[in-house]
């Protein structure tokens, strides 16, 4: 277990920097993570982040396709907001686990 200190609060992260507890997430932390990924967050980004957090809380397994069907963005727009690996990057900024396979 690793911890990082942000605004005087200790936050538990895994070895890849993903939050271990989504409840420790704050919008300020999202801005910080986004900055590290060279992304400036807009309202549209937050709409996606909040949707991801809500789905994760419901226990729904997430995929790029599912975000594309969310009604918030299509897949191309999702890539435009979070270039490179959109689900991997947005999950980190949203404070939820990295999308993985079984191994």
């Amino acid at each position, binding site marked *: *277990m690793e911890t990082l200190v942000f605004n005087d609060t200790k936050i538990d992260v895994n*070895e890849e920097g993903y939050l271990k507890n989504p409840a420790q997430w704050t919008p300020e932390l999202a801005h910080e993570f986004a900055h590290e990924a060279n992304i400036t967050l807009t309202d549209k980004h937050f709409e996606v982040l909040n949707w991801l957090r809500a789905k994760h809380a419901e*226990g*729904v*397994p997430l*995929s*790029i*396709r*599912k975000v594309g*069907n969310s009604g918030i963005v299509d*897949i*191309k727009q999702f*890539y435009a907001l979070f*270039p*490179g*690996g959109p689900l*991997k990057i947005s999950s980190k900024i949203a404070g939820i*686990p*990295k*999308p*993985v*396979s*079984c*191994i």
Partner: protein
Amino acid sequence: MKNLVILGAGTAGTMMANKLNKVLNNKLWSITIIDKDEIHYYQPGFLFIPFGIYQPEDVVRTKLEFLPRGVNFIVDEVSRIEGEKNHVTLKGGRTIPYDLLIVATGANVVPEETPGLKEELWQKDIFDFYTYEGSTLLAKKLDNWKGGKLVINLTETLIKCPVAPLEFAFLADAYFTEKGMRDKVEIFYVTPLSGAFTKPKASKMLGALLEEKRITVIPDFYLQEVDNGRKMLISYDQKEVPFDLLVTIPVNKGADMVEESNLGDEDGLNFIPTDKHTLQSKKFENMFVIGDATNVPASKAGSVAHFEGEILLENILSYINHLPMEAKFDGHANCFIETGFGKAALIDFNYNTEPLAGKFPWPVVGPMGLLKVTRVNHFGKLAFRWVYWHILLTGKTLPVSTHMSMAGKEVEKEVVTLN
């Protein structure tokens, strides 16, 4: 007389028919199983057909052979489940009423979901190996292939047997090496995930295999379309990967009747919202879902269906006796990863525990190395075909615990849990 109806006579459905037939009173319950065709394929064997390790006939049996006497078998395609009316309608026109329904209609590959996949190069230079037809045609193709860029591409993350594409890459390396033409073949593994291995322990233990076998991984590649003219994969962010021979793992979807019945989840992939512990449908209380048809966050694999089956049997008996359903599925999966040259690795994990290293205590045959590449594991994988036909399908219990056990697993300081 009450009716218990099972949709799908594949791995999960056949297993449940056998289990329930043994325990339900046949004066009170009639069991009916419905499937659109009569052939039972040993799906794990499809992986071996392209390389000539199995012949096509090694994976084919009839469904009837594995269904118990006393269970009605209807060969017809389900057109709709009408949950409010407690009946299903069949394409042939019949309506079958039920008191309790088990949906075990599985998942299938749907290349039509991706533009360019099933067009002029389909089954010429583009193949799948998740179907009998695909793996059989790919065997012929590999037999005559002169080499070039072999690209293995996962179109989606949610696929049956998630390790099979990686096993295909390992077996391809061994196949071309043994044919003396490995230097003529470049192998690329193209995935929408962040790598071929995504979990810490598995990456640490098995990550080196890729380099050792000269397999180039192209991560974070989410396929938008295939350009047949240029023989090129194109991602949503306009990255391109050229191929000479494409082995695709197409989008996986649940049965069409799930969509017709308006029972699918929001993915649009026809998987049915299911309680991940009890396996009860989230929409109808007298409907249960098992195997690849569910949307539970477990692997889509035969071992998962088997472990779910043990739980589902208990819960169905509780349900029909008006007792609380106390059996809880933990996401347990167990699978061999064939790595080529007569060796394999073994993984064992559940919803909360990632695959760990150590020893898997398997009675009779002895312990098997977890996350280690060994000959014993390879023989375990080959022996599994016998286990599948004779133990798993017939509803017998494997000598392995239903819930994942930590016995033999190496835990460093803390158990790494992922949710």
